[in-house]
């Protein structure tokens, strides 16, 4: 088994209003960051898992992302399997 570290990023679909992002954007502009055009808030989910290989790890994480971490009705997700630590 190998140990993997992954990040799943979940974002609201572009068509879905993000009122919290708009509020943060307005605050940024009030602070003088006039160049800021838009802010949208998502989630970054850090995951540690064991799997026999990267392909299996990716499959498991894709399944988890589609099933639980993101709701496809209003969210999209992307997966980074970006660290592979020492193997056992």
């Amino acid at each position, binding site marked *: 088994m190998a140990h993997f570290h992954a990040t799943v990023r979940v974002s609201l679909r572009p068509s879905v*209003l*993000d009122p919290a992002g708009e509020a943060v954007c307005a605050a940024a502009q009030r602070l003088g960051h006039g160049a800021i055009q838009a802010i949208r808030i998502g989630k970054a989910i850090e995951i540690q898992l064991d799997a026999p290989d990267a392909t299996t790890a990716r499959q498991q994480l894709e399944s988890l992302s589609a099933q*639980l971490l993101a*709701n496809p*009705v*209003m969210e999209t997700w992307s997966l980074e399997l970006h660290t592979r630590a020492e193997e056992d």
Partner: protein
Amino acid sequence: MHVGIAIFPGANCDRDVGWALGGSMGWRVTFLWHQEAALPKLDALILPGGFSYGDYLRCGAIASSAPLLRAVADFAAAGGPVLGICNGFQVLTEAGLLPGGLTRNQGLHFICRDQPLQVASQRSLWLHQYAVGDSLTLPIAHGEGCYQIDGPGLRQLEDNGQVALRYLGNPNGSIDGIAGVSNRTGNVLGLMPHPERACDQATGGTDGQVLFQGLAKWVGPIT
């Protein structure tokens, strides 16, 4: 009439629903713990409002994987009447038993007030006692009640008469002012307003009783 009421950790309207159905309607009520995987014989099942599992990840997301939800899905698939109120509505969408999803209110505020509503369809057995276009007032109390669905999904809902209730004066930015939707067969209804809080004049109105009378009328002949 025997109605089951789900209890998730963080639910806070389960006792209100129990009082409304037991005290106001005089029905037998059984509380169902979220870990239960088998149901007693029930005439209907209600998922109450609250903050199930702290609403971590998304409202209703974690509750949708509870053992009880598999039993709820089986009960619904067999035609059993299921009502999801507020967080219960969110749970039903997350579990895929109702279409669409619910996000943060457009104005970001938690809205707690009496809300005028209009009946958009009689497809759901819970709304049989109303006519399309009837108005009613029910309390709302939510921060994440903004109903979301894509264009094709919305057309499908409208074509099938699944839009059950609309807000009069959309308070939270919901697509098409949608306050409640049913499944295609009409036995599963989810709504953000709280009918259980409008079952006694002491709490400001009895419009909520009409949903439960709709259930009683539907169940009546077969029990």
